[in-house]
């Protein structure tokens, strides 16, 4: 654990990459590393991590959820902090791991210790490290979707907006109903595709009505869902994870966009 001394060592942060960022959007992981390192953290990425177990947990499969939670706890409990670029995965570790071990005091205690030092990326930067501004430039109008788990389980609402306000040339335009679910919901979007489609259609309409050039959010699941819908509808709105913009790493093509070269001119 970190100790306060005259030359306190850098806090050791274990990055929980999340399975979606790992496969779909590594840029988000590197942006998280940059933001954390810029804020004075020593970042490590345990190779033993796979998934927080949410698919099992939300499908009622407690045994597999516990099994995966134990692996995450074992892989991350030696760090000073655990940080995830996702309110959903961060919320599972922080809010749901402890009750998952009801009746198992030894593991519950370990889950509680991990919970206490686990954070979503943006709230960790602002609420724990006290970061008030970032050095980044993003010349576009931006609208921000409040992903449900981050908003309601972790209280993430003002933190991303405060940091976005310090990004040069960025103009934030709030959409209507930014706090209403986009319809992703993990397995929900494939188990109830028509309902999910209705929800993401309404979300896409609000995004487009904001007339922003870029949509940002803090959870890749929601972003893939909204980007996929916007692109199916032919909307010319770029979709990015907020970490890319805050880290000044928004050079890669936006989510679901073609590689540079045949990208439409901005």
């Amino acid at each position, binding site marked *: 654990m970190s100790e306060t001394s005259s030359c306190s060592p850098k806090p050791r942060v274990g990055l929980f990459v999340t399975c979606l960022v790992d496969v779909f959007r590594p840029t988000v992981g590197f942006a998280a590393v940059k933001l954390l390192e810029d804020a004075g953290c020593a970042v490590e990425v345990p190779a033993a991590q796979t998934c927080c177990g949410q698919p*099992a947990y939300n*499908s*009622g499969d407690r045994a597999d959820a516990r099994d995966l939670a134990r692996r995450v706890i074992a892989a991350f409990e030696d760090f000073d902090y655990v940080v995830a670029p996702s309110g959903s995965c961060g919320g599972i570790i922080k809010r749901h791991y402890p009750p998952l071990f009801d009746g198992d005091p030894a593991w519950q205690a370990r889950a509680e210790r991990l919970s206490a030092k686990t954070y979503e990326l943006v709230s960790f930067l602002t609420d724990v490290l006290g970061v008030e501004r970032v050095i980044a430039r993003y010349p576009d109008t931006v609208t921000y979707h409040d992903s*449900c788990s981050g908003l309601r389980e972790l209280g993430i609402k003002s933190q991303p907006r405060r940091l976005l306000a310090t990004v040069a040339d960025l103009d934030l335009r709030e959409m209507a109903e930014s706090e*209403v679910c986009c*319809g992703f919901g993990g397995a929900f979007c494939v188990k*109830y595709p028509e*309902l999910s*489609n209705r929800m993401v259609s309404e979300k896409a309409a609000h995004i487009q009505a904001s007339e922003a050039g870029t949509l940002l959010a803090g959870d890749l699941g929601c972003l893939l869902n909204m980007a996929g819908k916007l692109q199916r509808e032919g909307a010319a709105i770029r979709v990015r994870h907020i970490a890319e913009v805050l880290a000044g790493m928004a050079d890669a093509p936006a989510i679901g966009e073609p590689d540079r070269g045949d990208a439409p001119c901005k």
Partner: protein
Amino acid sequence: MQVTSQTFKSNAGAALRDAALQRALKNLKAGFPGKRAAAIAKLPEFDQLRAAGRDLKNHVLEHLDFYLERFEAKVIEQGGQVHWARDAAEARQIVLDICRSVAARRVTKGKSMISEEIGLNEFLEAHGIQPVETDLGEYIIQLRHEHPSHIIAPAIHLNRDQVADAFHAHHGPYGFTERNEEPRALMNEARQVLRQQFLSADVGITGANFCVAETGATVIVTNEGNGDLTQILPRVHIILASIEKMVPTLEDVGALLRLLTRSATGQEITVYTTFSSGPRRPEDLDGPEQFHVVLLDNGRSGMVGGEFQDMLRCIRCSACMNHCPVYGAIGGHAYGWVYPGPMGSVLTPQLIGIDAASQLPNASTFCGRCEEVCPMHIPLPKMMRHWREREFEQHLSPAGVRFGLSAWAFFAKRPKLYRIAAGFGAWLLRRLGGRKGRIKHLPLAGGWTAWRDLPAPQGQTFQQQWAAQRGARS
């Protein structure tokens, strides 16, 4: 009423394609949430009230036997009768027996979800007794042979023209031969038709928002005054209440009422708040000769002390469904039984069995808006997850879901294998995305790509790139 909860998915699809329903649902979304927010903004102590309400109901549930017996004693002391009903069938029979004891032919009814839960109207009709709903929304759907689609706004799924059609089809015999579509005229029509029913009813049946153990009173909140006419004019008043409606004192009712009306309609108080205590006393000018309270269990006592106990705090305000994006998209009928929306997705499996309602707790993104607005702090998503656990334990989950989960878990528990699979998946999806960077059609993922593109991965996984850049450190 026929249960169609297990065809939720197709019910929902039909609801999404029902243009009239979609038109009506726009009114719901535009109305309730804004009114609630405005009412709560004017009450700075709302969150303290919520906490107090939660604690109060928890206290009652921990001492439910005490409060039930105390309430019963008080009702009897005031000349009323209490009937205990273990299940819906017993409750129906109790009501029928009371009706028969006074040779009742017509029964007026205030709004009661317990009446829906026990299927009372169909039962009374089958036994030659005519039930007449007197809440305007309930009256409209009774004419249309429908069930409520919402627990406080039963006809919220309808538009004005549909109401006009229903009245036009049924009100001819009462002298209304012209089709009216103007709201005031429609209301006047209903008022005049219902007045005749009120005056000729033998029995009046109402629900109860609260049962006060201290005084033996039952409480209803209404906005139309129909509840009062239902319970005062006939010779017999029957109250249908489920056992968790107990509240210790009149003061406690005050606290819960402040939460209920604001959360429901955004009102500070409803137009009528009616307390009923026993039959008419000699000095009373009006009131029923008989006063019966039917206390229904129907599976609720089995929730006490278990993982669904918190659900018994519910005061039926409807805030959860008013704010639910799923309910807002499809309305209440798609849920396939009496209680729709998030509260229904928790309560219905308890009342009719998880095997008959397992779709409902699954049809949620766990967005958490229901819990956020619940005035009783009921952890609705958590309890929906508990139902999914029951479903999984009892092997009721669809085979495809179980197979997918176990295949995924197999890899997720083997990090080295997982990294290889993830790398392969990213590579494959990247190839499928081609130069466009997204996939328009993906076999086995039709649920996704039927409606939206799938953004393609960037290339190598994060772990692959990280290992290449910095070497694996674990």
